[in-house]
């Protein structure tokens, strides 16, 4: 085994840290408090090359491997970039752009991927529905064949970037009788008649990312916008959510590293009982637990990234374990970091409460912790 990063990855990590600290982090608090998407930061991410990092150069990306994407995601979190922006980036790049790149026709790839890789267009992915979250096969949005295309009817819920997206990857049933095999994937552009965004949701955390309802009312989508084959939607969705359990959770791990730095600095300068609180064992215990979490979680996230780089088509066990661990085991250290800051921990000044709020998405988005346990136990049962 070898757990080292290459020299290029190590220096890229430094570049991302520097870029994020200088160009993005100073804008975070204002946008988080206003709960608004920061277009300027988005543009900067695009200019820096993050948004198309792993997409091939000929499609406007940088051709990086998955491990490098995890390096970048982790560095964004570690620098103090909020979970909202990193979620918007993840949904855009991995759930939308990569899905089109991995399953699209050459024409579809040429048409959409370069625009997404630059950040000029924003992408989203709509799988979840008001009545179908964990139980994906229960989705009700229909895509009925009509003439040379399909007519979509239904709605999607909790869609990251939904109302600001220029293009959406949408999962719908082409065969309402069939369960998994009845699902197909479509590319739907903003402005397509019958496609609209409903309300944006007010959220506890990841507040700078837009989370929307999407509505399809007799929305006609041409046949050339079918992504992959008819009926292949569930398979595509499962490969897509694997990104959720890999690159999308990397910033959550980085954020916990950010908390370590915040906690150390605060604990050294805050005095109580005549000495810095850093000298109390209970404070050190919290800092140590943050570190233990980060190192454990980091190893898991790099493992799934490495597995993906080996070209293995599915890595369900590795992905589910990483997602479950990051989601569930980050709660206590994130909470500890907040409490370590006392009253200030509950206020916005030190950013730790934001990280706490943002981190609470980890056990929900991309499949809840229960769903990860279902996957893991199913694989164990089959062994």
């Amino acid at each position: 085994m070898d757990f080292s990063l290459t020299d290029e990855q190590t220096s890229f990590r430094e570049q991302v840290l520097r870029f994020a600290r200088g160009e993005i982090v100073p804008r975070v608090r204002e946008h988080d408090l206003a709960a608004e998407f920061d277009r300027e930061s988005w543009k900067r991410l695009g200019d820096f090359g993050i948004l198309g990092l792993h997409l091939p150069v000929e499609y406007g990306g940088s051709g990086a491997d998955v491990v490098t994407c995890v390096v970048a995601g982790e560095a964004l979190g570690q620098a103090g970039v909020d979970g909202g922006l990193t979620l918007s980036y993840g949904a855009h790049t991995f759930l939308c752009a990569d899905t089109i790149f991995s399953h699209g026709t050459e024409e579809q790839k040429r048409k959409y991927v370069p625009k997404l890789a630059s950040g000029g267009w924003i992408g989203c992915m709509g799988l979840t529905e008001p009545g179908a979250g964990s139980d994906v096969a229960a989705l009700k949005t229909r895509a009925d064949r009509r003439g040379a295309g399909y007519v979509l009817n239904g709605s999607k819920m909790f869609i990251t970037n939904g109302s600001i997206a220029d293009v959406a990857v949408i999962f719908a049933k082409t065969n309402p009788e069939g369960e998994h095999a009845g699902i197909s994937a479509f590319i739907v552009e903003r402005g397509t008649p019958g496609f609209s965004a409903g309300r944006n949701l007010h959220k506890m955390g990841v507040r700078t990312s837009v989370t929307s309802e999407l509505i399809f009312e007799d929305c006609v989508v041409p046949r050339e916008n079918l992504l992959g084959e008819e009926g292949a939607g569930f398979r595509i969705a499962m490969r897509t959510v694997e990104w959720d359990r890999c690159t999308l959770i990397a910033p959550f791990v980085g954020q916990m590293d950010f908390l370590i730095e915040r906690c150390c600095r605060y604990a050294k300068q805050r005095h109580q009982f005549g000495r810095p609180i850093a000298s109390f064992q209970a404070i050190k215990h919290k800092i140590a637990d943050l570190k233990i979490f980060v190192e454990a979680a980091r190893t898991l996230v790099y493992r799934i990234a490495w597995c993906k780089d080996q070209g293995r088509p599915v890595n369900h066990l590795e992905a589910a374990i990483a997602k479950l661990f990051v989601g569930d085991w980050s709660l206590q250290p994130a909470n500890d970091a907040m409490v370590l800051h006392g009253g200030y921990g509950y206020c916005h000044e030190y950013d730790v409460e934001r990280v706490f709020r943002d981190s609470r998405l980890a056990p929900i988005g991309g499949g809840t912790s229960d769903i990860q346990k279902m996957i893991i136990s199913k694989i164990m049962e089959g062994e």
Partner: protein
Amino acid sequence: MNFSWTDHETGVRERIAAVVKPLSDELIRTFEQMPLPDLKRTVASIQESLAEAGGFVVGSDPESATQGIAESIHLGVLARASVSLFLTVRATAEFAGLVACFGDASMRAKILDPLAKGRTIGAVGLSELGEEAEIGPAHVTREGDSYRLTGRKCFVTNGPIADWVAVFAHLEGHDAICLVGPDQQGVSSSARSELMGLNGIAISDLAFDEVLVPRDHLLGPFDSTAARSWYQLSADLSIAVAACGLMERTVHAASEHARHHRRGGKEIFARQEVRFKLAEMLTLSQTADLLTSRAAWARAAQSPDARALIRCAKVFAVENAEKVAGMALQITAGAGYRKGSFCERAYRDAKGLALAGTAVEVSRMAIADEILERY
């Protein structure tokens, strides 16, 4: 980055597995009651087989010794069979590592060869009674060209069966290590300690009453705590590997039970309350295993992160071994709670691992101190 074993590593692991395979649970259990001379012979013969398989690497110099300790990760399959036997073998390797790292060339030539072949058994005495005890810390005084060692060490793994013991003691305010044999005048061992778990290990307290230590059997005195830290990190890494082996086996045992045991017309594996516990157990087991492998790799690669990673791995692995063992008992319930069941043993063994080596409380303080210095 590479998360799979290299061909060389796979070869070593397969050869170790072949040595471990005939060691059935029944056979390993007999070690608990075996007369000490028989146990000593048995341990030496297992060590020899492991050495031949490349699973008991005793370096001949600091670099190869550290490499050897890092490679203890491949012995995980032995920990899976018996945590006690694993710790027994590792105690010899850690003794050897101290000699290789801190001894001079002549000492290495004299002591290391039989150790590298697995034929002799080593032990390390660092822990002592609490400061409230009447007997003070172990200490060495000069006597002409030689030294005299006086003191008491407790909880010494292999204490009753060791051919060599490395005893940490103070010499004029510095750490030093005395290498002593059990038959030397003034050396005495208590009876084998009876423990709550880890019953396969032969542990005892060792007393040293004015033991004569020739100059060439003394390592140090050291200006720093390097030898002590080297040993503690090595022992902590071994304990983390042990905890991972224990967890892996425990998850397997609980999962097998859940597959076959039926209640309410179904295997209990079919119940979410059971299967979700198993999923959590596997998650903890794999996480601990990966983190420990990374810590071992960092040590072999002489990474500046190695110290922190070993501490993190140790705390994570031992605490979660306890958690996993508790969950396994919950799943195996009545069957698991019966004396002699694997899960009942695992539960007791896991507690022992959580106490052995650097206490988790002390490790946490060290982890935090290192980070606090950075910011």
